[in-house]
C-alpha cells in the first residue's frame, strides 16, 4: 500500500558512458574521438587486497574492459606507459555538499512583510522556499528536498576534490534539520544529467539549526531532537491515515498531503538510510538513540571525537563516516596563550589523528570523509597522518573506495578497478601514503582530468640576467601572482624595479639608469619558465634589446627548511608519545577506569548524620557492600577482609542532592521557540564532558535534577542524574527517579518578546489551554470508534497527560505567592498536584496553602533583589516553610553554588532551623521531591552507598569534602585530587612542549 502514496520517486540512473547525454539535441558537428586507452606497466591497486605489479588497465568508453598482468592490448587503444606510477581506484566522498545551491540571504532580508510576521517563512528564489506547496509548516523540515534535482555542477569544487583523489561524491543538502534526499554524483565535468549517478540515496538529518531558514522553533538542541521525533511520529500517522482513508474514504476528512512526510516514508520503513551528522561523540550517541527509537537505518557522520568514548561504539551495527579534520595546532607560543588552554584541547590535538585507527580496530564499518579538509587541500596530508597513527593502508583504501561504494549501493560499478567497472581512478607518482607523492591525473568515466600542480610556476627567485650575452646583472624577484617586487644588482649597485608584475606566464617590470644613461627608464618583459626567462626590452631611445635570465636560487628559504623540519619532527613525535590513554571524560581529572565498587567497606568512629530516625550517631560505624549500605550503627563487626577506614573526628553525611540545576546540558537550557515545549527532554542533551561534574563531586554533591530553563510556562522534561564522573549520558541517569516536567511563571516567562503570554494573566490561560488540549487529546486517542482517521501521536500533549495521570510530576518555577496560588488552584482543578515549586521566593507568605496542597518548596538561602520578583526574598523562607510543614529543600540553580551546598545548609541553620533539619534540606528532602527517597538521601540499611566524608562538622563553614562516594564507588578523594592536579599540570606542560616541537 505504501507505494500508492509514494510521492518521492526512487530512481536509479545508469550513468551514460559518453560525456554528452543521449537525449540532448546536437548543434553543429558531432564529437566522436575514440575512447580506448591502455595504461601499461603501472602498479595497480585493483582493490585493497589485490595489487598488480606491472599491470595494465584497458578502458573502453568509460568502462574497464580488462585489467591484469600481461593482458592483450588491442590495436585501437592509445597506450600510456606508466612505468613507476601507481594507479588507485578513485576515492568516493560520502559526505559533501557539492553542487547544492546556497540560500540567498539578501533575498530573504529584503522580504519585509515576512520578516515582520512571526512564523515568517523563508523566502527568496531558493527552491521550495515559499509557503505555496504542501510542505511542512516548520521550515527546518525539508525532507522533501531532493539533491539530485537541485544539483548544479561546481567546476572548481570538483576540480579541488579530484586533485585529492576523489572521483565520486555523495552530496547532501546543507540546510535544515531534515535536510532532504541525498544524491551520488560524479566529480567529472558536464551538465547535471551527465553527473548525477543516483538520487534519493539517503535522508540527511542534522542537529544544527540553519539560521538561513529563519524558523522560530526550535531554538535549542533539545527542541531539535523533539522536532525530529515528532516528525517521525507524524510520518507514521501520515502513512496510517492515508491508508485508512484510501481504503474507504466515506465520511472522513481527507488527511493532509505533506511532501515532508511522504518523503520520509522510505526512511521510516528502513528502506532508505538516514545519515545523521554529529559534532562530538556524545552527539553521535544522540543520533544512535534516535535511530534506535524509530528503527532507522543509520549512517553516522561522526565528529572525529569518537575515540574518546570508544566503549560506547564497540557493538554498533551501523557504519561510521569519520572525518580527518584534526584540530589545528593549539596556540602555544607564549605563556598568555598556554594559560588559557585546557588539557582537554591539548589531548584532543594529540589523539584525534588516531580516531580512525581506533574505530577501525573495533571492527566497525568505517568510511573516511574529506569533509573539513578537502577545501584547504589538506586531505591527503591528514590521511597520511591517519595511516601513520595506526590505520593500515589497505583499511584506508577500503574506507575511501569499496566501503562507501557498498553503502551507496554503487559497488557494482564503483569502488574497485575490476573488469566491467567504471574507469574511475587516479594516477600517482608513488605510494599515495608517502608524504611526497603527488596525484598526476584523475580519470573519471574514461575521461582524463589533469591535476593542478601544487607548485605553480613562479618568477620568484634570484636570477643571473644577461643582456646581449653579457652576464652582468643579478635579478631578484619576489611576490604573489600579480604584483611583484624586486631589484637588479650590478657592480654592487642596486636598482629598484618598478611596476613589476607576473601573470603566471609573463614578467614585466621597469628599471631606471641600469645601462649607465642618466634618467633612462628601461622596460623589461619576459616569458618565465621554471629555470629561465627569455625576455625582450626597450630602452628610452626606442631601441629594443633581448635579455635572458637563469635561475640561481629559489629564495624560498622560509618555506623549504620548514617542510623538512616538519617531517623530522613528526618522526620524533612518534617516538616521544606523551600520552596515549583515553581519559573519561576526556579532560582534566578524567578517569582511566571506572572507580571500583568496594566489596566490603567499614567506616568507623565517624559522626554519622543518618538523616533517618537514628539521628546523628557519634562514633558511629557503617558497613558498605556491593554499592549498598549494609549496616549503620555502633561498633559494627565487619566481615574479615573488609576494607576499613578509621574516620575519627570526621563527619559522614548522605551524598548531597540538588533538586534544581542546569549543568551539563548541551545546546541551550531553554527552548524559547514556543511557550509550551513539554516535548523537549533534558535526557536527550546531557553532556557528561563537563569539568563541573567533578567539581560538584568535590563539593559532596552526588545527585541532581537537571531542568529545562524557565522561559516557558510549560518547559521540558527533566533528568535526575547521579554525578557518575566519566560515564555516558545514559549511565548518569537515575533511572528510579520520578519523571518530572518543568513549568515556569512570572518574569522570565513574560520577558520573552513577541510571544504569548506577556502577563501573569496570560500565563494562567496558556497553561489552562495546554492541559485542556491534553484532555481533548486523550478523548480522541482513547475513542474506540468503528471508523475514522487514526489519532496523531503528539509527544507534547502526551507528556501533559502523564502529568494529569500522575505519572509525571511538575516542578514549577515561581517567585511570587500569587502565581503559586494560581497554579495550585489550576492544578487542583485539573486533578493533579504540583510536586514542587522552584525558588519559591515568596513561599513563606502562603506556606499553609503549599502544605495543604502538598507542594514541596525548593528554595535558596539568601538570593534576593536581583530582580523585582525577588525583592521580597527573605533568609527565613526555608525556616517558615519548614515550620509550617512544607517539605522544604535547598537548591542552587547555579553550578558554582552547587559545589558548596553544605555551606548553604549551614546558613539555613544560622536562621534558626535545627541542624538536622537543615541537613535534611540538602539530602532526604530533595530525595523525596525527586521520588528517590527509598534509595538515597539518608544513611540507612539497604540504600545506595552514596555518602560524603567531611573534614569536620559539615554545616559550620570550615568543612570540605574529603571523599565522595556513589554506589559504593569512590568518585572523589581530596588526597588523590591533589596528586591529580600535579599530573594534570605536568601533562599539560608536556603536551604544550610537544606542540612547540612540532612547530
Amino acid at each position: 500500500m505504501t507505494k500508492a502514496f509514494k510521492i518521492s520517486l526512487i530512481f536509479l540512473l545508469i550513468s551514460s558512458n559518453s560525456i554528452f547525454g543521449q537525449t540532448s539535441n546536437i548543434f553543429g558537428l558531432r564529437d566522436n574521438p575514440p575512447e580506448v586507452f591502455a595504461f601499461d606497466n603501472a602498479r595497480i591497486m585493483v582493490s585493497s587486497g589485490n595489487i598488480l605489479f606491472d599491470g595494465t588497465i584497458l578502458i573502453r568508453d568509460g568502462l574497464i574492459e580488462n585489467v591484469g598482468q600481461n593482458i592483450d592490448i588491442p590495436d585501437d587503444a592509445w597506450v600510456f606507459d606508466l612505468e613507476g606510477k601507481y594507479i588507485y581506484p578513485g576515492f568516493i566522498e560520502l559526505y559533501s555538499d557539492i553542487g547544492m545551491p546556497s540560500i540567498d540571504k539578501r533575498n530573504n532580508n529584503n522580504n519585509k512583510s515576512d520578516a515582520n510576521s512571526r512564523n515568517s517563512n523563508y523566502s527568496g528564489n531558493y527552491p521550495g522556499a515559499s509557503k505555496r506547496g504542501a510542505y511542512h509548516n516548520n521550515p527546518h523540515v525539508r525532507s522533501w528536498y531532493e539533491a539530485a534535482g537541485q544539483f548544479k555542477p561546481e567546476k572548481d569544487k570538483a576540480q579541488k576534490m579530484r586533485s585529492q583523489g576523489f572521483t565520486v561524491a555523495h552530496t547532501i543538502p546543507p540546510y535544515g534539520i531534515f535536510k532532504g534526499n541525498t544524491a551520488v554524483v560524479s566529480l567529472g565535468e558536464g551538465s547535471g544529467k551527465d553527473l548525477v549517478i543516483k538520487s534519493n540515496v539517503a535522508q540527511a538529518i542534522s542537529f544544527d539549526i540553519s539560521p538561513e531558514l529563519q524558523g522560530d522553533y526550535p531554538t535549542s538542541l533539545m527542541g531539535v531532537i523533539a522536532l525530529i521525533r515528532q516528525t517521525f511520529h507524524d510520518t507514521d500517522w501520515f502513512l496510517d491515515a492515508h491508508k485508512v482513508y484510501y481504503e474507504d474514504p466515506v465520511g472522513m476528512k481527507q488527511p493532509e498531503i505533506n511532501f515532508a512526510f511522504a518523503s520520509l516514508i522510505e526512511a521510516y520503513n528502513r528502506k532508505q538510510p538516514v545519515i545523521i551528522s554529529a559534532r562530538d561523540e556524545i552527539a553521535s550517541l544522540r543520533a544512535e538513540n534516535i535511530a534506535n527509537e524509530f528503527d532507522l537505518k543509520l549512517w553516522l557522520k561522526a565528529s572525529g571525537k569518537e575515540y574518546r568514548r570508544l566503549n560506547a561504539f564497540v557493538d554498533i551495527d551501523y557504519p561510521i563516516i569519520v572525518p580527518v579534520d584534526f584540530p589545528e595546532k593549539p596556540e602555544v607560543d607564549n605563556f598568555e596563550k598556554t594559560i588559557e588552554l585546557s588539557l582537554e584541547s591539548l589531548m584532543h590535538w594529540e589523539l584525534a589523528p588516531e580516531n580512525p585507527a581506533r574505530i577501525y580496530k573495533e571492527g566497525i564499518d568505517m568510511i573516511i570523509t574529506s569533509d573539513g579538509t578537502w577545501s584547504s587541500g589538506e586531505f591527503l596530508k591528514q590521511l597520511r597522518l591517519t595511516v601513520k597513527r595506526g590505520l593500515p593502508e589497505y583499511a584506508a583504501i577500503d574506507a575511501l573506495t569499496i566501503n562507501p561504494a557498498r553503502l551507496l549501493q554503487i559497488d557494482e560499478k564503483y569502488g574497485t578497478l575490476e573488469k566491467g567497472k567504471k574507469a574511475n581512478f587516479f594516477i600517482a607518482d608513488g605510494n599515495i601514503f608517502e608524504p611526497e607523492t603527488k596525484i598526476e591525473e584523475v580519470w573519471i568515466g574514461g575521461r582524463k582530468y589533469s591535476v593542478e600542480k601544487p607548485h605553480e610556476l613562479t618568477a620568484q627567485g634570484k636570477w643571473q640576467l644577461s643582456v646581449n650575452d653579457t652576464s652582468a646583472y643579478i635579478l631578484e624577484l619576489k611576490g604573489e601572482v600579480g604584483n611583484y617586487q624586486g631589484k637588479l644588482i650590478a657592480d654592487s649597485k642596486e636598482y629598484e624595479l618598478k611596476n613589476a608584475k607576473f601573470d603566471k606566464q609573463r614578467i614585466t617590470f621597469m628599471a631606471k639608469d641600469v645601462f649607465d644613461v642618466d634618467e633612462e627608464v628601461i622596460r623589461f618583459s619576459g616569458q618565465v619558465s621554471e629555470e629561465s626567462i627569455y625576455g625582450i626590452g626597450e630602452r628610452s631611445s626606442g631601441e629594443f634589446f633581448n635579455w635572458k635570465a637563469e635561475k640561481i636560487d629559489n629564495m624560498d628559504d622560509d618555506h623549504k627548511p620548514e617542510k623538512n623540519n616538519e617531517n623530522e619532527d613528526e618522526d620524533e613525535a612518534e617516538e616521544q608519545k606523551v600520552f596515549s590513554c583515553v581519559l573519561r571524560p576526556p579532560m582534566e581529572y578524567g578517569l582511566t577506569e571506572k572507580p571500583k565498587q568496594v566489596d566490603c567497606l567499614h567506616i568507623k568512629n565517624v559522626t554519622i548524620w543518618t538523616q533517618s530516625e537514628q539521628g546523628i550517631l557519634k562514633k558511629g560505624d557503617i558497613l558498605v557492600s556491593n554499592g549498598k549500605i549494609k549496616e549503620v550503627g555502633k561498633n559494627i563487626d565487619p566481615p574479615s577482609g573488609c576494607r576499613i577506614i578509621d574516620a575519627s573526628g570526621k563527619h559522614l553525611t548522605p551524598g548531597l542532592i540538588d533538586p534544581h540545576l542546569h549543568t551539563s546540558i548541551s545546546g541551550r537550557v531553554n527552548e524559547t521557540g514556543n511557550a509550551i515545549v513539554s516535548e523537549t527532554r533534558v535526557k536527550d542533551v546531557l553532556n557528561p564532558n563537563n569539568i563541573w561534574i567533578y567539581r560538584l563531586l568535590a563539593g559532596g554533591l552526588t545527585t541532581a535534577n537537571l531542568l529545562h530553563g524557565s522561559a516557558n510556562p510549560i518547559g521540558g522534561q527533566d533528568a535526575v542524574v547521579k554525578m557518575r564522573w566519566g560515564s555516558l549520558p545514559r549511565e548518569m541517569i537515575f533511572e528510579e527517579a520520578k519523571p518530572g516536567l518543568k513549568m515556569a511563571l512570572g518574569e522570565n516567562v513574560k520577558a520573552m518578546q513577541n510571544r504569548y503570554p506577556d502577563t501573569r494573566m496570560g500565563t494562567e490561560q496558556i497553561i489552562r489551554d495546554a492541559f485542556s488540549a491534553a484532555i481533548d487529546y486523550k478523548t480522541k486517542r482513547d475513542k474506540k470508534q468503528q471508523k475514522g482517521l487514526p489519532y496523531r501521536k503528539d509527544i507534547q500533549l502526551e507528556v501533559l497527560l502523564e502529568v494529569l495521570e500522575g505519572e509525571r510530576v511538575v516542578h514549577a518555577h515561581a517567585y511570587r505567592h500569587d502565581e503559586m496560588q494560581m497554579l495550585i488552584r489550576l492544578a487542583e482543578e485539573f486533578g493533579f498536584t504540583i510536586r514542587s515549586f522552584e525558588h519559591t521566593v515568596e513561599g513563606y507568605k502562603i506556606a499553609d496553602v503549599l502544605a495543604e496542597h502538598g507542594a514541596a518548596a525548593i528554595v535558596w538561602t539568601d538570593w534576593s533583589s536581583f530582580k523585582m520578583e525577588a525583592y521580597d526574598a527573605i533568609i527565613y523562607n526555608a525556616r517558615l516553610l519548614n515550620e509550617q510543614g512544607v517539605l522544604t529543600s535547598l537548591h542552587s540553580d547555579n553550578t558554582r553554588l552547587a559545589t558548596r551546598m553544605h555551606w548553604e545548609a549551614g546558613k539555613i541553620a544560622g536562621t534558626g532551623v535545627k541542624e538536622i533539619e537543615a541537613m535534611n534540606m540538602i539530602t532526604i528532602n530533595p530525595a523525596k521531591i525527586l521520588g528517590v527517597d527509598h534509595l538515597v538521601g539518608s544513611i540507612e540499611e539497604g540504600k545506595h552507598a552514596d555518602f560524603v566524608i567531611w573534614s569536620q562538622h559539615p554545616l559550620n563553614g570550615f568543612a570540605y569534602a574529603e571523599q565522595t562516594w556513589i554506589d559504593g564507588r569512590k568518585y572523589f578523594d581530596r588526597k588523590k585530587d591533589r596528586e591529580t592536579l600535579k599530573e594534570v599540570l605536568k601533562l599539560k606542560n608536556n603536551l604544550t612542549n610537544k606542540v612547540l616541537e612540532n612547530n
Partner: protein
Amino acid sequence: MIKLKLIYQVIFSVLFFIFSLPAIKGQMPSALQKEPVALVNGTVVTVSGDVIKNGTVVFKDGKITAVGHDVAIPDDAKVKDVKGKYLYPAMIHSGTYLGLMEVFRVSETLDFNEYGDINPNVRAEVAFNADSRHISLARSHGIAVAVVTPTGGIISGMAAAMLTDGWNWEEMVYKAPLGMVVNWPSMDNKTERDNAIAKLSETFKKARRYNKAKQVSDKHFHSTDIRLEAIIPVLNGDIPVIINVSDYRQIQSAINWAEKEDIQIILSGVNQADLVIPHIKDKEIPVIINSVFSGPSHQWEPYDQTFSLPAKLYEAGIRFLISGEASAANIIRLPNHAAAAVAHGLPEKEALKSITLYPAKIFGIDHRLGSIEKGKDASIIITDGNLLHLTTQIQQVYIKGRKSDMMDKHKLFYKKYSERYNRIKEKSN
C-alpha cells in the same frame, strides 16, 4: 508593542514600590549612646590581641573605654551579663553597592554607574539612600561600615565608607572620600587597553597641571575643572586609588602605572593574584579579595582555586582583606567568604582579621574600627558562637555605642508572616 510592555513594567515597578513603602517601617536608626555600657562575662574576641575569656568591655559616648578581665565598671554604667556569648568587633564590607541599588534588574533603582569614562568627581555618599531596605540587613548582620563603591567607565568615582546606622547619608558618612575607583581595562584587546590607559594617564597629567596652576591662582586666573579638582587628593597621597582588576596581566599593568604616577593603590578583585605574588609583594600593594566564591575560570584549575586564594596570599605575606559580593542584597554573605577561606587553609584568626582589622588598616580607619580596643568605636557584635561559623546567630549589634535595632527587611517579613500562621493556628484551636 515592545515599548508598551516596557512602560507597563516601569509603572508596575513604581506602583510596587509605593505599595511596599509601609514595609520599611520598623527598621529604626538607633539613638545615640546615653549612658556607659558594660558587657560582662563574655568571651571577648579582640582580634588585635588575645581572646579574653570572661572578659568585660566598657564603652561610653560611642567609644570603648576599657577591655579586659578586671576592669573597673563605672557606677552609672548599664551592665549587661553576656555569659556564654562572644563579643567581636563589627565587620567592614569593602566593596558594595549598598545604598546605591535596590533591585538589580530595575535600572531606575541603580545609582552606581555614572555616564562617561572619567568620573573622579562623583561621590558615592551623596546618592546613598539611607532608607534602602538592604541597610538594615547589613546592620543586623554585624556590618558597621560599608565601603560603597561606584563602578563603570575608567574612573568610576569616589568610594565612601558609610556607617550602617543613621537617618540620612550626612549622618552616616564614616570617611569620604575613601578612595578613587578605577577599572583597569581588559588586557585582551590591546588597542582598547592602550587607549584606556592613555586616557587615564592623560587625565592624571592634566590634574597635575591643574594642581600646579591652582597653587599660584592669586597671580593667574584658572577656571574650575571639577573632574581634575577631584583627583588632587590622590596626587597628594591623601587617598588611594582602588583599582578593579581580574587577571594577572591587569594586576601587573596597574602596578606599573601606579608606580609611574607615584600614587598609592589598592587592588580589588585579584582573581589570579597567586600568579604574580612576588610583584605584588615587592611593591607592597594591599589587595581586596572579593572572589572567594567565584570558582575556577580555567578547566585545568583545581576546584578550590578561589577558595584557597586567601590562604595563598596570606602564606606569601601579602596584605589582603576579604570582601563579599557587590550586590547590596548579598552584603550579609561577608563572613561566609571568610569562612570558606578557612575551610581551604586560611588560619581562622586571619580570616577574622580579613573582615575587620585588615580592611580598617588598609582604608586607614583602624584608629577607629576593626578591633575591640580602648579608644576605638564601640562597634561590637554579640553572638552565640564563632562569628565565622555559618550556624552562628548574631544577637545584638552596637554601632558607635548605639544599640542597634535588630529588625531588618527579612525579619520584618518573618514576623509578619509568623503572625499570619499564629492567627491560623489560633483559629483552628
